[in-house]
């Protein structure tokens, strides 16, 4: 009982510190926006880091969805609905969630490690001593970059999963679903609302992952063990946060 209390206390203390850190981060955002080149560079870094894994995973998930969907739909003679099945699953759910999980593993861990190493090698203290706020120079641009890159990556993921390399390839080219039916079903079935909700999810996930990654890196112990702990906790905490938030967001959106 005491142990649970201690864990809960620890968790709440960390959450409190992380929330304070988020406020400082948000206050530093305007100063980070004054350095657009730094921000663009970070968007390029986190985006490009994750691009290949997102593209390949998107294609494979689309293919698997099409295979499984085709088998089930063919029981009802409804294989012409394959397009909408793949599209809605991807846009509403798998796109944002899987992209965010991969993003946490690839870009989130790299962000935490990079900032943690900057802490360990005194680069952050060095900046402070040069009267440059590392929150504005290091943390905020990386946080913003994750926030901006996530929806872009999730969109790429969805396009890959639905399109010619994923669902379309398996459904139409391999299994022989009519291409006209595949696209027209998507065209009729996917609403602007679906896309908007998908974007909201990926924005929230992007902000969450980058927040956790930057916080973990910034507050890591300045040792090799500290940096490794920061990367691991970034991936674990981000993944849990993504899945929990996905449930909460879906529940809210469902009620709309």
């Amino acid at each position: 009982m005491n142990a649970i209390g201690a864990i809960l206390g620890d968790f709440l203390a960390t959450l409190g510190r992380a929330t304070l850190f988020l406020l400082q981060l948000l206050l530093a955002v305007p100063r980070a926006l004054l350095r657009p080149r730094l921000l663009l560079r970070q968007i390029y870094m986190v985006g490009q880091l994750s691009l290949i894994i997102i593209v390949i995973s998107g294609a494979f998930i689309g293919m698997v969805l099409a295979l499984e969907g085709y088998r089930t739909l063919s029981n009802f003679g409804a294989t012409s609905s394959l397009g909408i099945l793949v599209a809605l699953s991807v846009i509403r759910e798998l796109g944002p969630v899987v992209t965010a999980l991969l993003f946490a593993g690839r870009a989130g861990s790299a962000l935490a490690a990079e900032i943690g190493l900057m802490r360990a090698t005194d680069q952050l203290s060095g900046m402070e001593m040069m009267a440059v706020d590392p929150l504005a120079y290091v943390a905020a641009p990386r946080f913003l970059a994750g926030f901006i890159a996530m929806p872009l990556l999730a969109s790429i993921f969805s396009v890959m999963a639905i399109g010619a390399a994923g669902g379309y390839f398996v459904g139409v080219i391999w299994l022989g679903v009519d291409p006209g039916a595949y696209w027209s079903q998507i065209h009729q079935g996917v609403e602007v609302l679906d896309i908007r909700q998908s974007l909201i999810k990926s924005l929230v996930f992007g902000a969450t992952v980058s927040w956790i990654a930057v916080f973990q890196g910034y507050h890591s112990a300045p040792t090799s063990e500290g940096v490794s702990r920061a990367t691991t906790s970034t991936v674990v905490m981000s993944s849990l946060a993504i899945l929990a938030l996905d449930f909460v967001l879906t529940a809210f959106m469902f009620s709309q």
Partner: protein
Amino acid sequence: MNPVVTAMPNDQPGPALVQVRGLRFGYGRKLIFDGVDMDFARGRITAIMGPSGTGKTTLLRLIGGQWRPQAGGITFDGVDIHRQNRAGLYRLRKRMGMLFQNGALLTDLSVFENVAFPLREHTQLPESMIRDLVLLKLQAVGLRGARDLFPEELSGGMARRVALARAMALEPELVMYDEPFTGQDPISMGVLMRLVRTVNDALGLTSIVVSHDVVEVMSISDYVYVISGGKVIAQGEPDQVRQTSSERARQFLDGRPDGPVAFHYPAQSLAEDLGLEAA
């Protein structure tokens, strides 16, 4: 009158640039400083020496305003460092340069960009002037030819010299060196020692050198503090400190393995530990 002040050489103008008064600081329950008074006179190189773990680096971080003391205060040019808001603190920091032990260069920027970094952040100078200034600073530390290298391509001594060029970029009044000579080969040690002295004298700076390299630091500094156990245990000009009668200071300066700082970590007696004494 404060004995610290009377012990200072009396030929510098005005009060000390940095004054430490009644400083108390600790982590958790471990007290690092317990009522320390120090003066860092203008235009002088003052050394802070002491065994590892006595808080020498901590003192620099306190002077830089990165950490707060639990009691006492530190003033820079008469301004209390720890009573500033962030803007005030940053204004003070622009007048200080700090050299971290490993240089703390930004690893994603070249040597040139590292030295240009404070200029770009804090001035509106045109690019051509920044270039000239950076090259002059690099010339002073002998690394103008290394301007396009990246930090990972530099030796430890070169990284520290680049960091010195960067620390001088904004023409500070105070430069703090954290263990500048540790782990250097004799040549780069000699280079760094000469640089600390010439930079101080040529630019009219005030320097604080934290180190445990006794011989080297004594040879270049004007005034020395030896700290141990949270207190100043010896101070004065290098020759005075060499004559100190403090046992603790003597052990440190002469490098004796046993003395007030015991060779053995506190433990029960060996006989007891080996079970040789009847209970």
